[in-house]
């Protein structure tokens, strides 16, 4: 191989160097650069040359190169060749840095370039600075790569975790992109560690194209081949700082064989070697803000993004026991998959089933979008007019930082009487009524009485009721009082007799009066009347009655002496008249006298 190269060099030298003046120059794209900016240095020689030795680049970090370009051109039969070595440098400090001379051998003579002074000022681009640092931190694990080539690979192959935002609201979607930047040939690559993304709900974006899509990107003036290794949509699940762990990938890098001589033609003729190389991305911290409390609607359940909601009903005029489909469709961009089930307010009389959830969600580089449909199967069990209330749905729009409330329309359902016997299934009882023991097939017949007995149910407790209720006891009490009074009277037998005496006497007197013409009967009656009267009045047994006794008793009752004598005289007269004729006094006079006496006694006793 080396022989081949030598021959080629020799040929080139022979053909051109004889006539050409050899120039070996160093040039930079600018003399003053900021820190973090990339300086391109090119060493070029207009002749065939070898044994190029770059300067030390003290004060710089080599981020690219050497890019070797050979060109051979023939103009008017004159063949000219040139070789250029390009480096991309990033200053490591401010101030004046000198790029030292590079040396090369051409035509057996050494050539060297003149040193170039570069002024490094403080860079304006913080980002490029950051990127430079990031790149440097993407440094390889030195254990796994071959010595001598470390710097070259670490600058040419690195992984970066890129997020579209490092500050997000809870539930706001974040696009995470694991990108591979390379300037070397990769023979093989496989992930060793993929972060488990704790604290996020993540959805990997599946690429439709199985082949790796490469594109080029220029970072700090250096062209890289870039590919997305993995794209993920992240939804932070809690507030605070959440760290995305680094990803690690193992590569086998195919690179030019290192030639001890540094001869670029070694590579040119296919000398290469495979190097195992481990790449690790830097961790990234996402600051998750809580959702604002201000203006949070009651119905808010955690949707973040931008949504729209609509509800639909397949029919609103049904018979009882016919099924209805009620669909809620939420479409938009955001954490659709994380939406909590919506619980619409269905009429309680509707039998409802768990909704069928259909997701039509696409996850691509622009995020998660699509729609989610909740389809509810409802079965109205009874006739009537029912209303499905509007559904309120709220989401947080992180772009505006505000909550948005949406409301669907309400639906009116008219349920006609259904056919069949399904009406015995209700929302209230979870079992049908079939298990009730059927006692008979019909109700009992009417009562065929034709006489209406009106029963006043309000009789109980009425005034009449209480009146009648106390009637019995009152009657009994009355009877008691009456009985007591009667007993008291009956107990006074003497008084009774004496009270009755007048009456008895009157009776006798009355019968005596009737016999005024019959002297004997008249006196008989009068005598008996007076005697009986006195017997009753004075409480003397009839047999004990005599003149002395009468006089004594009457005297005891303090009657007038004259009245007593008159009484005794009258009695004597009556006794006498029974046996002998009476003169000097008529029967009428005797009668009046007796009556007078009785009246007098009655008045006095």
């Amino acid at each position, binding site marked *: 191989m080396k022989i081949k190269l030598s021959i080629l060099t020799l040929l080139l030298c022979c053909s051109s160097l004889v006539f050409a003046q050899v120039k070996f120059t160093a040039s930079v794209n600018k003399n003053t650069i900021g820190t973090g900016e990339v300086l391109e240095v090119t060493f070029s020689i207009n002749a065939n040359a070898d044994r190029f030795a770059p300067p030390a680049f003290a004060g710089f970090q080599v981020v690219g190169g050497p890019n070797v370009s050979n060109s051979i051109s023939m103009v008017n039969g004159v063949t000219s060749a040139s070789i250029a070595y390009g480096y991309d440098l990033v200053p490591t400090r401010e101030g004046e840095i000198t790029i030292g001379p590079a040396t090369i051998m051409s035509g057996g003579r050494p050539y060297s370039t003149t040193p170039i002074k570069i002024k490094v000022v403080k860079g304006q681009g913080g980002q490029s600075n950051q990127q430079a640092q990031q790149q440097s931190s993407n440094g390889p694990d030195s254990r796994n790569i071959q010595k001598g080539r470390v710097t070259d690979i670490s600058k040419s192959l690195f992984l970066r975790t890129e997020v579209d935002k490092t500050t997000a609201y809870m539930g706001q979607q974040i696009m995470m992109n694991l990108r591979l930047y390379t300037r070397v040939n990769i023979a093989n690559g496989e992930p060793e560690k993929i972060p488990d993304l704790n604290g996020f709900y993540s959805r990997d974006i599946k690429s439709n194209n199985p082949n790796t899509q490469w594109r080029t990107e220029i970072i700090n003036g250096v062209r890289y081949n870039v590919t997305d290794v993995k794209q993920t949509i992240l939804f932070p699940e809690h507030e605070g700082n959440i760290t995305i762990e680094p990803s690690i990938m193992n590569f086998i890098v195919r690179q030019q064989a290192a030639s001890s001589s540094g001869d670029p033609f070694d590579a040119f003729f296919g000398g290469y070697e495979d190097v195992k190389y481990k790449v690790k991305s830097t961790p990234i911290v996402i600051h998750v803000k809580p959702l604002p409390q201000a203006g949070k609607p009651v119905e808010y359940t955690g949707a973040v993004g931008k949504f729209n909601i609509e509800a639909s009903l397949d029919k609103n005029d049904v018979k009882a026991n016919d099924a209805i489909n009620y669909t809620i469709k939420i479409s938009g961009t955001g954490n659709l998959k994380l939406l909590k089930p919506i619980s619409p307010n269905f009429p309680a009389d509707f039998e409802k089933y768990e909704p069928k959830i259909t997701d039509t969600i696409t996850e691509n580089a622009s995020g998660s979008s699509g729609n989610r449909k909740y389809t509810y199967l409802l079965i109205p069990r009874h006739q009537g007019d029912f209303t499905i209330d509007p559904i309120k749905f709220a989401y947080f729009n992180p772009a505006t930082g505000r909550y948005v409330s949406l409301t669907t329309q309400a639906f009116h359902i008219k349920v006609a009487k259904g056919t069949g016997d399904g009406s015995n299934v209700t929302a209230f009882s979870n079992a049908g009524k079939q298990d009730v023991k059927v006692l008979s097939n019909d109700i009992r*017949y009417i009562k065929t009485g034709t006489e209406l007995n009106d029963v006043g149910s309000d009789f*109980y407790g009425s005034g009449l009721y209480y009146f*009648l209720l106390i009637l019995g006891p009152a009657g009994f009490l009355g009877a008691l009082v009456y009985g007591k009074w009667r007993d008291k009277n009956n107990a006074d037998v003497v008084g009774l007799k004496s009270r009755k005496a007048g009456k008895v006497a009157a009776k006798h007197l009355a019968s005596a009066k009737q016999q005024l013409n019959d002297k004997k009967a008249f006196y008989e009656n009068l005598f008996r009347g007076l005697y009986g009267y006195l017997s009753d009045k004075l409480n003397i047994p009839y047999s004990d009655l005599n003149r002395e006794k009468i006089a004594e008793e009457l005297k005891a009752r303090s009657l007038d002496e004259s009245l007593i004598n008159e009484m005794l005289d009258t009695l004597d007269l009556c006794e006498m008249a029974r046996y002998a004729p009476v003169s000097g006094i008529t029967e009428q006079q005797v009668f009046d006298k007796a009556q007078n006496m009785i009246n007098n006694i009655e008045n006095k006793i």
Partner: protein
Amino acid sequence: MMKRIIYLLLIIVMPICALANDEANVLLKKGNDQYAKGQYKEAITTYQKIVDDGHQSALVYYNLGNAYFKNEDVPSALLYYEKAHKLSPGDEDINFNIQFANQKTTDKIEAGTEFFITKWWHSFILRFSLTTLSVLTILLIIAGSALLIVYRFTNSVSIKKWSFYSALVVLLLGFASMFVASRQDQYFDAHHGAIIFSTSVNVKSAPTLNAKNLFLIHDGTKVEILEDNNGWMKIRLASGNEGWINASDAKEI
């Protein structure tokens, strides 16, 4: 004395067994005939007229309930059955038909199981109608009092003995009857029922429209009214659930 008692009895019995007027009896006969012919709608009209005229009779309520039942108006049927039941709680036919019609209602409500003595006691106090019990009470008390009066005034020792003990027994029976009547009265007071007439009623947790819906009941269900409040009724189901419904959704028994 005997004459007086007879008069009293007449006074008592007169308003109770008030001679229903002939017109109502004619209507009743007509309604029965219509029912027998299967003209249930016409029978409803006829019976309803008797009721509207102010006649309260278990018989006509029961027949009206039957006519409504045959006309497939279960809630109305139950309403009148329950009215009949209230007037004549011990009537087997009425109770049977209530049970039967309840099978046609939507809600199956498991009543809390009653202690057997409670159950027996309820069936005992509901054996006779309140009016029957009232009349019985009055008659027994009066008879007892009369016997006591006899005891008081008789001269015969044997009659005195006999009348005293029988008076005691009769009066005790009278007080028992009065007690049972008061129990029955209280029972219907405490079980102040209503029948749901709306096809489906949301029972709410408070007497306002936007209160939470506790449960759902349907037409024909018997509820107990606990409270009335501004057109709302607090109700209790046999199962013990309580809540508020619109007063217009139910008809009181």
